[in-house]
């Protein structure tokens, strides 16, 4: 049981899980059903929480446990629950055809992953070839990719709700970067950020609800009154 103390082992696991998160993200791109995209999101958040936990464990950084816990409660639990309630309330189950069809958008998200790696390449320091650096630039690449793909989902999907999901998964990318690069931001900052994300989702939820009422549809591409 020595490897359980070996940080390098932890790093490998983290890299693996990060890859998993990425895969889930790409899967979410192709996903049609609202509920299942929500579920994918919660799974993703769960993995992130796990990553956070592992980092906390291997680096004895106690305050990251709190971050992990928060993630588990908020992102993997509370938010998906809220969103599913919203879905039930507004009785829309299925995403209509996205602007770019599924295969193409999956291809694009592949390219975006590539972009992530290209960008991260410039961070690779020859002088320090330790695994930490490798981890750093790996997870950074994954984070950037998550960010870009989440962004891409937002501008690809028509439903207000899926845009919110996109925004959330984009935040997940940030969270991954935060914990894995720097072993977590200062706690107070983390709390602030969590709080903000929560409020943001609340507000967006309210908005989604009102839009549904006003336009009796959630198709944001119909929101084109305000234009030149």
């Amino acid at each position, binding site marked *: 049981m020595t490897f359980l103390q070996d940080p390098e082992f932890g790093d490998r696991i983290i890299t693996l899980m990060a890859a998993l998160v990425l895969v889930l993200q790409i899967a979410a791109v192709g996903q049609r059903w609202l509920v299942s995209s929500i579920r994918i999101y919660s799974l993703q958040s769960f993995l992130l929480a796990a990553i956070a936990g592992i980092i906390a464990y291997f680096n004895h950084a106690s305050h990251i446990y709190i971050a992990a816990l928060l993630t588990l409660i908020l992102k993997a639990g509370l938010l998906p629950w809220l969103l599913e309630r919203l879905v039930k309330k507004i009785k829309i189950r299925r995403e209509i055809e996205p*602007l770019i069809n599924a295969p193409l958008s999956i291809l694009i998200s592949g390219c*975006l992953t590539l*972009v992530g790696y*290209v*960008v991260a390449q*410039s961070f690779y320091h020859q002088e320090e070839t330790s695994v930490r650096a490798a981890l750093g630039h790996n997870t950074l690449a994954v984070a*950037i990719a998550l960010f*870009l793909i989440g*962004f*891409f989902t*937002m*501008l*690809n999907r*028509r439903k207000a709700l899926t845009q919110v999901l996109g925004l959330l998964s984009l935040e997940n990318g940030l969270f991954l970067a935060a914990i894995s690069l720097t072993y977590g931001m200062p706690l107070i900052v983390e709390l602030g950020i969590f709080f903000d994300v929560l409020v943001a989702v609340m507000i967006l939820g309210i908005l989604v609800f009102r839009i549904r009422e006003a336009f009796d549809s959630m198709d*944001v*591409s119909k*929101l*084109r*009154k*305000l*234009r*030149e």
Partner: protein
Amino acid sequence: MNTLPVGPTFTLSLAAYLTGALASLATWRKPALCRYICCGSALAGAIFGGFAAVFGILQSTPVRWSVSSGIPFFSYSFDYDALASFFNLTLAILAGAVSIYSLSYLKEFEGKRNIGFFGFLFHLLLLSLAIVFTAANAFLFLIGWEVMALVSYGLVAFYHEDRETRRAGLLYIVMAHVDAGCLLLGFALLMQVSGSAEFASFRSAALQLSSGQQAIAFLLFFSCFGIKAGVIPFHIWLPAAHPVAPSNISALLSGIVLKAGIYGMARIFLDGLGVLPSWAGLLVLIVGVASAVLGVLYALMEHDLKRLLAYHSIENIGIILIGLGAALVFRAAGHPQLAAVALIAALFHTLNHAIFKCLLFLGAGSVLHSTRSRNMEELGGLIRTMPVTAFCFLIGAVAISGLPPLNGFVSEWLTYQSLLAGFGATGGLTRILFPLAGSMLALTGALAAACFVKAFGITFLALPRSAESRSAHEAPRSMLVGMGCLTVACVALGLGATWFLPMFHALTEQLLGTRVGANLITAHGWVLSTGTPHGGLVSTAAIAIALLFLLIPAVFLVSITGRQFARKRGPAWDCGLPGLSEENEYTATAFSKALRMIFSVLYQPRREIQAVFDVSPYFPKAIHFESEIEPTFEKRLYEPLKDLLLRIATRMRAIQAGSIHAYLAYIFITLVLLLLFGVRP
């Protein structure tokens, strides 16, 4: 006599303008009082300003003073040198005359319009002009310049109810802002070299200017001041804006605000940019010729009295630029003497044009005031109902046509002389340009004469063409006094030119480092020469006296021989056609017909005639004739430009089509691009 209080008196005049502005704004609820305050304070300011200018001319050394302000680059620094005092003198004369004129002109505003606001703008205009003519700090100059533009916009758009006025005002302010932009760039360039905003530093920095910088700066300043002075092809705002303003303001706009452009050119080209290459001078000269000829040609086709005058401003600005350009060329060729003559010609014409154009606009103003019409086709016969106005207008017309013995003749004569000298002074093919320019100047003069025969003849002579002009009445006294002062000035500057011109010695000495040879004035101050031994001579005073002398034999012949038969008044013979009435009078359109045909290449005239018959085609009941000429520059140059801009703008509005996906895509693409290309060092 170095102790003349130039600074204090000038400051007093500024103070008078400022207090006038605030006071008239404060008293706007009592129109009559406000009117008196407005005109009184303006007159006081003009008098102080006039004294300051005279002092400045008398003591030939510049007076400089400066007050710092908390703002970077910006100091209230003034330089009251010969040039400044000359332009301030012009300003003072016009301001005085106009404020006298306005006293009863503004009476018709009472109850209808806000005299207080008018007075506010009026005073600010005078104030900003005084500052522009005196500022020695680029930033102060810019502020004065732009305030001048904004205030004149307010005055141009004063009758903002009708659409034409609003459009004219907007055209004016947009052009004015474009020229402010050029000015800004030019000054920024100079400041870049000199490191300071003071004109004095520009002078010293001019030597460090590379020829490229000098050329760019010249072009920037020339386009700026050209727009302000309304030279072709930047003139389009002028005939639109000047006529629609209240007439006393039109007088100021044409009389002095245009001259701000001339002042700028004189100040910057002769003082700020070092010695400019001769191509610059030639450019100014050519633009001047074009403006002169085209200006008068367009004026000939106008039947709106005020717009006609506005086009004549373009012409006269052209004449001024001819002199200025010649001065620049001579300076570049190293003939300061000739340059001095040419500069004197230009500046003296500036003063003359200021005076007689102001006079003519005031005359047109009182015609408008009593007949409510600017259209010459509805006027006529006013010489009987408003004799004094007619006389003043006639004097102005003779003067602007450059006929002896009035002031217009003197300055045009000087211009001719400098052009003639130019042939000898320059080499190569450019020397041909000078005589050609001279002949074009001659054409301009003759056409101007034709145009004013039309303007005066159709407006004031023969029979009234409408009920309004039949029931016209002479203008109230103060308006007549205002015009009278300017009339006297026209005559005085014409006959007394030889006594007046020496005031330019200090100016040429300051700007060109030389004074025209002592024999600028010869024969005991009676004869004006060009300073060269064999050059031309002229003496307007002598001509006037000789004319009076020769009147004796003429009168003698008529009165002696034709005594026994009384001179009777009868109906006009008119080739024996009975019943002369306004229907079969000659019209302005008809008068300009011949020239319209001759220059049809330029005008592209279009006309349509519809005759209404009732019995037979040989007896038309009514004939509707309408003819118009094509405004070439507006149609060929500015319209397409505007359309292009608007079309592009309309295309670009597709960016903001309301789709949030598009909006997100913009950000996304920017992000990805920056990530791919921005991160690498």
